[in-house]
């Protein structure tokens, strides 16, 4: 039982990370029709900056702030230079361009910081025992930080005028244009927000995985599975899907086989989608003539 509790908590912690990355992906996708494949590599860039700062004696929390800042700035740079010139609604081109960016950025990271794994500091060390299980505090902190970040995003979108405007653009870009909403500015805000969430998620994930240039590829793919499970355009879906994937992934790794974890996750996702193609929270669209 205590073993199960441990797995469950670490599953929720992983899920919180996937959920945050998924939330970032969904925010950017809804606002700009771009599936940002480069999100993981850009966040990796931020992580390396944080590690370098740590090595110079800067506090971990400040390092995390720096990581988020660097990721956001790099992301905005990418959007303005290579995504915006593609124009609106270029779903495939934009996806492939972000793949290209991802390859380049990953390689820059590896040529500057090398391929050897680096350790990333925990925010908090130690364990607490509960029901006979020694739960790592870092996992609990991960869950708490992610929950706070999600709550802030929820507040922003549900309660502020800026959030309403972003939802308006996501629902109907054409009407938003007629009403006079500045699409470019809102798109930049969405990118900044999405990348900031990804960088935060990366800082929560890295202590467990260690840091290599491709460290975030696996969580990115699992976040993808999560948002497809959730319905691609739903922010709740991203969080719920991410948590589902996280728990499933940890259960599979512990009770089946660590080397088949993605097989379980992706088979589950594909099976769910075969039954419900629009995902759990997605809506079915129907083309009219």
């Amino acid at each position: 039982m205590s073993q199960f509790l441990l797995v469950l908590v670490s599953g929720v912690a992983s899920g919180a990370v996937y959920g945050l990355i998924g939330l970032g992906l969904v925010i950017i996708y809804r606002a700009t029709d771009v599936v940002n494949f480069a999100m993981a590599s850009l966040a990796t860039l931020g992580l390396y900056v944080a590690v370098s700062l740590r090595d110079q004696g800067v506090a971990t929390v400040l390092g995390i702030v720096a990581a988020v800042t660097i990721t956001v700035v790099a992301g905005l740079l990418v959007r303005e230079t290579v995504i915006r010139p593609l124009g609106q609604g270029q779903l495939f081109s934009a996806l492939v361009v972000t793949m290209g960016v991802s390859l380049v950025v990953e390689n820059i990271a590896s040529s500057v910081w090398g391929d050897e794994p680096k350790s990333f500091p925990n925010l908090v060390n130690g364990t607490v025992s509960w029901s006979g299980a020694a739960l790592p505090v870092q996992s609990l902190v991960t869950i708490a930080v992610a929950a706070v970040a999600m709550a802030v995003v929820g507040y922003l979108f549900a309660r502020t005028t800026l959030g309403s405007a972003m939802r308006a653009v996501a629902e109907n870009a054409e009407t938003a244009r007629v009403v006079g909403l500045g699409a470019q500015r809102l798109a930049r805000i969405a990118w900044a927000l999405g990348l900031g969430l990804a960088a935060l998620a990366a800082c929560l994930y890295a202590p467990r995985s260690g840091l290599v240039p491709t460290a975030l590829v696996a969580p990115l793919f699992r976040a993808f599975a999560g948002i497809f499970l959730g319905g691609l355009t739903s922010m709740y879906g991203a969080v719920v899907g991410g948590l589902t994937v996280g728990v499933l992934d940890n259960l599979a790794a512990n009770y089946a086989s660590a080397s088949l974890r993605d097989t379980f996750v992706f088979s589950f996702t594909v099976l769910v989608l075969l039954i419900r193609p629009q995902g759990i929270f997605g809506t079915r669209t129907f083309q009219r003539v």
Partner: protein
Amino acid sequence: MVFNRSLLAKAALGPAAGAVLMAFMASGAIPAYQMYSVALAAIYTIVVLSVGLLAGWSGIWSVGHPAFFAIGAYFAAYGSGHGWSLETVVLGAVVTGTVLGAFLGYAGARFSMLYIALLTLAFTMVTLELVNRWSSVTGGDQGVAVLQLRSSLGLGTLAGGSTESQYLAVGAAAVVLALAVPAAASGLRMRLVAAKSHPLAARTIGIAPEAQSALAFAVSAAFTTFAGVLLGLITGFVSPDPFSLNLGIALIAACVLGGVGTIIGAVAGGAYLTWNPSLSSAVGLPQPVVQGLVLVGVLLFLPGGVVPFLSAPLRSALRRVWRRPAPTPAKPNPAADLAPRQPATATAATGEAAVVLRLEHVSVAYGGLKALEDASVSLRQDEVLAVIGPNGAGKTTLLNAVSGLTGNGRVSGTVDFAGGSLLKARATARRRLGIGRTFQHAEVFSELTVAENVLCTRRWITARDRADVARLLDSVGLADVADRRPGELPFGLQKRLDLARAMAEEPKLLVLDEPFGGLDAGERALLAQQIRRLHAQGTAVLVIDHVLDDLFSVAHRVLAFDFGRTIGEGTPDTVLDNPEVRSSYLGTVGGRAELPERVGERSVLRLSGVGHTYGGVVALRDVDLDVREGVVLGIAGANGAGKSTLAGILHGSLKPARGSRETGGTVRTSLAPEGRALFKTLSLRENLEVAAYAAGITGAPLRERLAETTEWLPPRLRDRMSVPAAGLSGGEQQMLAIARALIVKPDVLIVDEPALGLAPALVDEVYDRLVRLAHDGLTVVLLEQLLSRAMSVCHEVAVLHEGSVAAQGRPGDPSFAALAEAAYFSGARETAATTARL
């Protein structure tokens, strides 16, 4: 399939190049260390071709091909270790690839491009995990050797890593290329492209997109697994390394680089994949960086790919040298079609033919909305039946019920066609039963040529089919443009193509959705003649439209619809005598609302010579309009007259193609668009907030405006400010849309068809409020489908007909009423003639 000489010559290019290459290899002109690279390039060419043609022809971007490639290679390894023959290995690999590919293609057809990417990504990841895990077969990380494969047909023995294997790879690539050439000219490709570019229209000509994508994916996967077997043979050793997800990305890069869907592009892509490492070391950058830069650069600067970019100027240069210049687009009026316009109902219905289509009590509901209610229609084989009615009356839904395109709507009632029940038949099956249909906006397949658009109705194309299609195109005046893409043609010709596609295979019943809409007078006369010809040939025709003159000139019988129900029936001469039918168009209004008496003289908004087109369709031509301060200006016109375009131009959110828009000083305009266009997932308050926010109002002023605007709303809305707008009724949504326009305190309020789809009581309420706004000094421009309503609430009315202002005046003026009514139906020029008939 037809093999003409040029096709054969093109198909022979692959084997010829392969033979030359093999000769070079044999002669030693290619250094030994490059032999392997050449063979690898040949194999990559097969894979890139599989990925690229799948993407180009069916729009499926697969990242699953590394897995198929791996499956093939491991088949070779396992087979060589267990004494399987070469043929067994190839057959086993190809069958496995085909079955898995068909599954992925079929499952993927239900999804969008992104979902297929995830599905195939999942497939690759799962396969790679299995490869690593199943080490008894795959050797895990260590890999496994491909020793040798013996042919069971006695063709010899191939050793892994041998020179013979390299020859085999080059030869195989040559054969695959040779097969691809006729495939590109076949009906198979046309049907795939048709299903990809317009799945819905494809269904109406009997193409099922799911089956097409399953087939395409299966074939593509089969070739890739075959390439995998070859890879195993030329390397002599298989390990998981080459089949990473990065290979998936690299394959996409290679496809995009060469040009998606082109055969020579695949050769270029294969070469690029093979020599990318050498290229990278030559420029001194790491390989992934080069790959990433190539991807970004090509998509930004050469989105079509390198080969099409290079070949287009080459081809046009060749054409200039060798041939006469390409034909200019056909003039729409070949002499044969200029026969004098025949009188209406030239070919009479005898009234004795059998009923071919019978709808009884058919209803179609989308969620809570009944788009069609209890419709009963019957059509005889020798009849042209017209269905008329205002916008939103349920006409298109009626056609969709007949052609099977009701989507997720609930259909009840019975539909019988040619003696069988139709509702159970899928949309794809209805074509075979003998139903052809056209679309309001000419939904043609943009990536096929004009001839291919019609040819793709056939599965296997014979020489006779080509001749038939040529004759059909000739009969509708499209013969000169048969090799062009629809996008290069004016809208009128696209509509003819849509009709030709529906006419191919001579259906028993043709269903035409607004065929006259968007056409000019000459084109409409030609079309009317075409419909009469079809009728004379024995085709039953069901047609809906708003262009009543032309519609009535071809119809034998007219049904009038409104609110999803039949409201009247008659001959073209009598149907408009029915008061209910007449009022559904013109409206019935009691007394005039009290308008403010004084109208300012100052012009706040002025259009001069404004014209606008959408992709060749003229929406507005030469409109002059002067909006004076404090006026309530009505712009009345039938559906498609150009009202919404005019609204956008007046508002300033749409830039006119020609002419100018001037404002008197800084004038803030605000638009309540047609169909409300609320943000349905946002609450009432958020809808208002967002509009104020867009105008740069934030903080305390925003709260103030919000409070004021909320006051303006009727009480039943004020109490529901935090409810999503989707939950409002149509009338309530309209109030909110007007409030949203008002929150920015506009000088001019433009309201586009506020009465659309509202019950009469609600319409009165909306109009009362608009008049009250005018009393408060607001300038209002009202776009209205019903002439009488515009006449009752406006100071001035301009009648819009086919994009021009056909009449303009004051409702109080007794002579204007008749003039406006005539202009509404027939435009300015034919006014005198048609007034009599009405």
